[in-house]
């Protein structure tokens, strides 16, 4: 095997001795697979990909890379949407794809210990035999890994009730930049000392590489019911969601899909039976005891109707429920019918302001002559404006990124945030200046240095690499929308 350019032969042989020949990926064609994650706008092939099989191998790999001073990007399944797994600075990608074992299921304590590369949906499948499930359920749950979920503090539709990954995280085993292993798994409710696990969650590969994870499992509810409220327009659907929140109703998921999304889903293999004559639908799961489900569902129907729902359907059986949710989770894939590429934005707004921000996003895309579809976690105020485009058209790419920036700025101005579940990565690094002041960012830099004094873990991600004053000045003068390398 010929040594890739930035990795010398000695280092390559040493890495191969740790992970075996099948644990090394090299060569231009194979490395191009790892050049981007779910955000193809940013692309940079690594010099090498290493796939350790466990914590020990990861520690040995990291120690070797530490000695060689090589930058490292961690990667799960590469389903992230912000360039977080893209090796922006070159160097080595360390992938957890071969760490796929469920190490322990402990039903009595409602917890599971898994390797970082276990696929999210596989954990819920395994837990089902014990009447339990793993609550965070990103749309990519059939492919994304638990380690990736930890790195991004991932969400999903049912996080409305159950919370993002951090609320389900009981411990992690982390390998630091120099190869030191931190076993932060505890057998107690509360941490001894500072909550390093909570701080690690959502650090996007900049603190260390997670190799094992202990998570909380949740009992499968006695009953789950799925309701679909149909509206003539998106505005009314958003109004209904704000009202549901104001009335403190607690279904387990509240999702909104607009007409373009419905049309795309219904024309795809994910066809779920959504009515194509509706301007928007609100998809809700209600879970609990029979009495609880009935009571919440009754209130939900009443609130939807008073906000203009022209029909509220209840899924007749488990098969229909499954179909409705498969349509929701397949929506991003279905959008491939509309255009070759999809820009999935991720922003958060106060839940009282859903209606005005969705209107504004629509207006921004109309102004820039872009096709916008909306499918989002409305109950959490987590918007996903999805803009269809063709990456071969540079002007369209420019307008897409400009729209993304304007939408984020509008959300922040309304008291919202630049990301609810996808993370910051490379894409939103400079947008951190819209949300935080320099003192806030300096505190984050201090914390990052404490975890990774070498600065080699996912360098140039998450935190702006220039002062915010420079970034703001650039934005005013050049309408720059792509982070500078």
């Amino acid at each position, binding site marked *: 095997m010929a040594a890739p350019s930035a990795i010398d032969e000695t280092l390559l042989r040493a890495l191969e001795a740790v992970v075996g020949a099948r644990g090394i990926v090299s060569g231009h064609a194979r490395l191009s697979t790892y050049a981007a994650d779910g955000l193809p706008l940013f692309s940079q092939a690594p010099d090498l990909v290493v796939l350790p099989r466990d914590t020990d191998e990861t520690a040995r790999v990291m120690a070797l890379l530490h000695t060689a001073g090589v930058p490292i990007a961690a990667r799960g399944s590469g389903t992230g949407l912000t360039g977080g797994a893209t090796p922006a600075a070159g160097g080595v990608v360390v992938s957890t794809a071969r760490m796929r074992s469920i190490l322990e299921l*402990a039903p009595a*304590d409602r*917890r599971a210990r898994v390797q970082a590369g276990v696929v999210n949906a596989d954990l819920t499948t395994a837990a089902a035999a014990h009447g339990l499930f793993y609550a965070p359920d990103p749309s990519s749950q059939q492919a994304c890994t638990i380690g990736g979920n930890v790195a*991004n*503090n991932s*969400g999903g539709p049912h996080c409305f009730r159950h*919370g993002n990954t*951090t*609320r389900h995280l009981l411990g992690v085993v982390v390998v630091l930049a120099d190869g030191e292993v*931190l076993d*932060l798994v505890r*057998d*107690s*409710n*509360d*941490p*001894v*000392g*500072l*909550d*390093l696990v*909570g*701080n690690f*969650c*959502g650090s996007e590969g900049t603190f260390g590489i997670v190799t094992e994870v202990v998570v909380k499992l949740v009992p499968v509810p*006695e009953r789950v019911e799925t309701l679909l409220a149909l509206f003539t327009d998106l505005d009314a659907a958003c109004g209904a969601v704000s009202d549901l*929140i*104001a009335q*403190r109703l607690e279904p387990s998921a509240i999702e909104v899909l607009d007409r373009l999304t419905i049309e795309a889903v219904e024309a795809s293999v994910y066809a779920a039976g959504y009515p194509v004559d509706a301007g928007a639908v609100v998809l809700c799961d209600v879970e*609990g*005891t029979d*009495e*609880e489900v009935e*009571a919440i569902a009754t209130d939900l129907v009443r609130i939807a109707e008073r906000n203009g729902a022209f029909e509220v359907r209840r899924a007749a059986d488990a098969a229909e429920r499954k179909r409705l949710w498969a349509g929701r989770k397949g929506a991003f894939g279905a959008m491939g019918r509309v255009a070759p590429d999809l820009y999935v934005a991720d922003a*958060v707004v*106060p*839940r*009282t302001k859903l209606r005005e921000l969705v209107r504004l996003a629509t207006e921004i895309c109309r102004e820039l002559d872009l096709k916008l579809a909306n499918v989002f976690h409305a109950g959490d*105020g*987590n918007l996903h404006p999805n803009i269809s485009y063709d990456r071969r058209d540079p002007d369209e790419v420019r307008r897409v990124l400009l729209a993304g920036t304007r939408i984020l700025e509008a959300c922040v101005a309304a*008291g919202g*945030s630049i*990301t*609810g*579940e996808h993370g*910051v990565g490379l894409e*939103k690094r400079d947008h951190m200046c819209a*949300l*935080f*002041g320099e*003192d*806030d*960012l*300096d*505190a*984050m830099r201090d*914390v990052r240095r*404490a975890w990774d004094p070498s600065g080699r873990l996912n360098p140039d991600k*998450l*935190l702006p690499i220039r002062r915010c004053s420079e970034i703001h000045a650039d934005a005013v003068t050049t309408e720059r929308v792509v982070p500078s390398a």
Partner: protein
Amino acid sequence: MPLSTRIDELLGDRVGRLSHWGGPNVPIASPRSESEVLALLDAARADGLAVLPIGNGTKLDHALIPTRVDLALSTRRLTGIVAYEPAEGVLTARAGTSLRVLRETVAAHGHHFSPEVPHEDRATLGGVVSAAPSGADRLRHGPVRDRVLGVRLARTDGRVVRSGGALVKDVAGYDLQRLVVGAHGSLGVVLEVSIRLASAADERVLVRRRLASVDEGLELARALAAALHASLRALRIDGDPERPWLTVDIEGRAAVVERSLARAHDVLGPVHVLRDAGAKRVADELRESRRLGGRWPQLEIDALPSRFGAALAAVRNEVRDAKLSVELHPALGLGWVRFAHTPGRAGAHTLARALRAAGATSRWCGLDAEVRRELVEAAGPPAGLALMERLRRAFDPTDTLATPRLHPELGPS
């Protein structure tokens, strides 16, 4: 003798004394504004004073007593709700706001403020975030760290930093608030906190039954946790371990509560059922029962639920003849054992060893400061201790904050 000319000038006659907390008797400064907090920190740093951030001091001995304290800085005067939009279900308040004010404010709009902890009139929001105690409602509403959405923190170098915000979902940047929750003031002074509120339940019922033993309670608790999962607010065993009470705290929509009540009857047989004012009175009493006072120490047991029975057995084995009272939450694996005597240094070490052997973590309140430090050391360094110290130094490079609070090695050597 003046503490510091500049601090004396800043405070005038607004200085109290912190006493009877297990540590030295020191002056308490209670600034009225954030700028006063920053000025005090600046003066303390310049004069090399060790500052202990506090709220009203109700949970100070939940952590280690620092080796040196020159001044307590209380945020009790930084009060008031900064933002509360009931339709959002999020509240932001200044650190000194009392839990009673918070609870009553949000209750008027159908919300519940968690955690429910003792000293409700005096305990402050900042203190609760810093000490992160387990609330009486933890089984249903989770730990403090899961409810804190954002904090504003004064660093000892005079910078005020924000982490998180007031949104129920937000993953922008590192979760520094996760470090601040439970840090007992070792990273900075908490100025303001945003909290995720819970919906208040329509109905609440307490079911109580006298038990023949703690073991009977543990067995019943297992059955109840499985039968009532969705509506359980708390499930606890209290009182004299020879003849304790089992309390099942149920809440939810009316129909759900009635169904759960019927299930509880099926498991427990005849029970006392308390509703409305009666339920509230007993719930308030139970919430306050964990407050410390007098001379007797309290041991916290923290274990996996599956090991909790073994951990308790280990304690009982070591203190067979001792007079105790307990508050046990078996579904969580958490419990408090209150002694009617001081177990002494040897006894405390023996208990801690027995609990470690049973796979449980133990923490003491109200025990001699030196003995508690020994006990923490005997447990060995927690994973990531060197990283914790790097983080502490990143926040407080001048060692202005009084240490150690979390571990004997978290502070200047």
